């Protein structure tokens, strides 16, 4: 109702807040230039794009690259790997920081808590190459890896984990969890810190124990944060990331570890098949967007929290 005289008020509104709008400009330019303009480049998915001829002179081929993609023998294997690795990551990797945040929140001595936090954050600052080295060699090498050392101590046979397709996905997902769980607790800890302490006090007076307090107060109150982060994660479902998978791949575990990102790197960047890999990128984006919409609708229905 306030906006019934819209035009006049709007102008004044912009004039009054001009400083804010001016500050907005660089961000807008950035978004348009680096997020929207490159979207136009997606047309090369419908061309036989040649870097020598450029966007205008390359031949148009319609849906050829999409047909090639869907009829490629390994397509379903790659799709399956991409979906499963992301799914495992959401099933195991997503709840882990919540659990850690709840546990850390129960640590009463603040010095101890800080120490735990710092130790948990540390792996986040390692590059994937280093983490790949730690996992594939220091921990899992059949020759000198720590895990195999323990297995031999216990009287077992050393196992070459990196060449066994059954282990590829667990290794990739757990390496990611090791790296990012601690880092992920930050937001939850902040959300927990924002909860009104009087709620806990009255719950305590009513006789609720620590576990009951977590279930009935902490979790419901940080649920909006959890849902938001979950939806953001689902939106990037097929964008699992190139590096974090690539460092674990070799000729033998490729069949269970090759995902779209690594496939795009090999075919697109190494073999110069730009059109084909753009088609894959579009496919990924469409899948990610649909998943986001579905999850958002489900969340709206069940928890009345949603992104939009």
């Amino acid at each position, binding site marked *: 109702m306030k906006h019934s005289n819209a035009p006049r008020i709007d102008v004044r509104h912009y004039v009054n807040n001009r400083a804010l709008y001016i500050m907005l400009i660089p961000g807008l330019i950035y978004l348009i230039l680096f997020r929207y303009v490159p979207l136009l480049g997606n047309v090369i998915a419908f061309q036989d794009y*040649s*870097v020598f001829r*450029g966007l205008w002179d390359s031949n148009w081929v319609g849906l050829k690259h999409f047909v090639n993609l869907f009829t490629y023998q390994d397509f379903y294997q790659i799709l399956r790997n991409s979906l499963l690795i992301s799914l495992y990551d959401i099933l195991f990797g997503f709840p882990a920081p919540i659990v850690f945040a709840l546990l850390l929140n129960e640590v009463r001595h603040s010095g101890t808590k800080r120490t735990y936090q710092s130790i948990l954050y540390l792996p986040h600052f390692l590059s994937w190459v280093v983490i790949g080295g730690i996992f594939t060699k220091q921990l899992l090498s059949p*020759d000198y890896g720590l895990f195999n050392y323990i297995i031999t101590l216990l009287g077992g046979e050393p196992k*070459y984990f990196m*060449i066994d397709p059954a282990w590829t996905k667990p290794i990739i997902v757990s390496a990611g969890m090791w790296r990012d769980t601690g880092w992920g607790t930050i937001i939850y800890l902040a959300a927990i810190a924002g909860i009104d302490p009087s709620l806990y006090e009255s719950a305590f007076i009513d006789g609720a124990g620590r576990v009951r307090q977590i279930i009935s107060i902490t979790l419901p109150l940080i649920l909006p944060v959890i849902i938001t982060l979950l939806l953001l994660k689902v939106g990037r479902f097929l964008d699992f990331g190139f590096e974090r998978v690539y460092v674990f791949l070799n*000729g*033998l575990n490729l069949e269970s570890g090759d995902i779209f990102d690594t496939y795009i790197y*090999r075919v697109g960047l190494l073999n110069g*098949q730009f059109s084909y890999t753009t088609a894959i990128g579009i496919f990924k984006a469409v899948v990610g967007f649909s998943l986001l919409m579905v999850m958002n609708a489900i969340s709206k229905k069940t928890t009345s929290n949603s992104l939009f």
Partner: protein
Amino acid sequence: MKKLRLFMFLVFLVTSFALFAGGQEEASQMSSGEDGPIASFSLAYPTPSIYAQEHPNILEDQWLNELERRANVDITRMDIYPHTKRQEFYNLLFASGDLPDVFYILSAWQDLPPGILDEGVFQPLDEHLDADKYPNLMSTVPETAWKEVTHLDGHVYGVPRYLSTPVRRAVYIRKDLLDEAGLDVPVTREEFVEVLRAFKDMGVRYPYSGREYFAYENLFWGSFGAPPGAWVERDGQLVPTFIIPEFKEALTFYNMLWEDGLIDKEFLTNTGSEWRAKIHAGDVGMWTHNINSFAGWNSNVQSNVPEAELILVNSPVDENGQGGLWNYGRRNRHFSVNAQYDNVEGLMEFFDWSTTEEARMFYDFGIEGETYTINDNGTVEFTYPVNQSGQQELLWRAEFMPMIDNMAFNENLLPYQTGGDYVLEYFQTRADTDQFVHWFVPELRSVQENPDMHMFVGNVRSNLTLEAMSKIIYSVEPPDFHDEFVEEWLERGGEEVIAEANKYHREGQTFPFE
């Protein structure tokens, strides 16, 4: 007041951008000199040189500047890039459209965007290959090397840095371990296996080691007549070794090595540096690598195991005396020229100069009176640097700066290196006897367009192939899995690859490397 400040700020932003862009423009104009160099050009330059990669501004490097002065050329831009990332580098370079005048190309055309030779990006150089105008160049570069940079249209698209001997690798054996085992230098495959078994019994951790993608892992393939990625002739037809029965035999044999612990269990997941570290630590009894790297291996292994002694030997042969390591052909690297570049004569003059005796002295020994002196009897007084940085600097000057040269070995410098005489002797007398003859096949469209079909020289990069090989060797599948692989390979594009290769074979565009 506020408005004025904001306005000033915006003006500042805009002008600083303009200045920045303009500044670069100016710099490149300034360096294209006015005192008339014979050629002025920019270069795309993927290189293994650590010296160049770490240099803050290679255009101001003393050796490059000295080269420019002596050759009277002007290098206006040099995009240094690690050679291991060259595919990304080239693809991004071509996609950017900001192309230099000269491209330094490492592994023939397969690193470049598919179909590049048909796009008119490079200029044909045939009319410039004139022995009267460029006598040094034309008399130095072998005929075969030119053939290897000739496209199907019959034009020559590159100036090759060549190999005087096409075999660059040899088998390294720890002589001290061999003596300890009381065995002679092995010759046949059986004798090699005997040595590896003896190493294993002596407690050598990895009797033989290799690294991922079968890079530098050439030991036994030649003795089966099936080095991965080679083309061989069968009943007048060219076939890739991947699909011949001998390849299955070789895979079965490697599976035996793996099962018996004669080869490093992790040889297919070792990175280059892990592989090196194992050898340097003295844990490896045998490996294959470049003959040229002998001095480096020697000093690195000896720094950890003082009693270690290395020897170079030929690869194993089968019962008929057949075998051999990969034949690299005669082209090793080459320079291609941008179609827009208009001073090819000047560029060719530079290449011609770089093959002269005078240029060679500079590349190898540096500046007279500074880095070397000439004795009364005419010999060169030169000290080979002992420290890493000195060696890297020397390598940059003598091996990695732009030049046309023999990349097999450096006759001038080897005598100044520890063990250099031994290496030179090996190159001149024994390297050539250890070669597997396979066929040169031009770049195939069917391979470029199908990543599953890739047949990298020396490295196995096609996942289809790599997976099948790894599975059989690591006992995940029985050797008969090879039959399934062949069927799948043919079905997924192999038929077309073979058909295309044999089309060129019939047209006489292929030839055996010798």
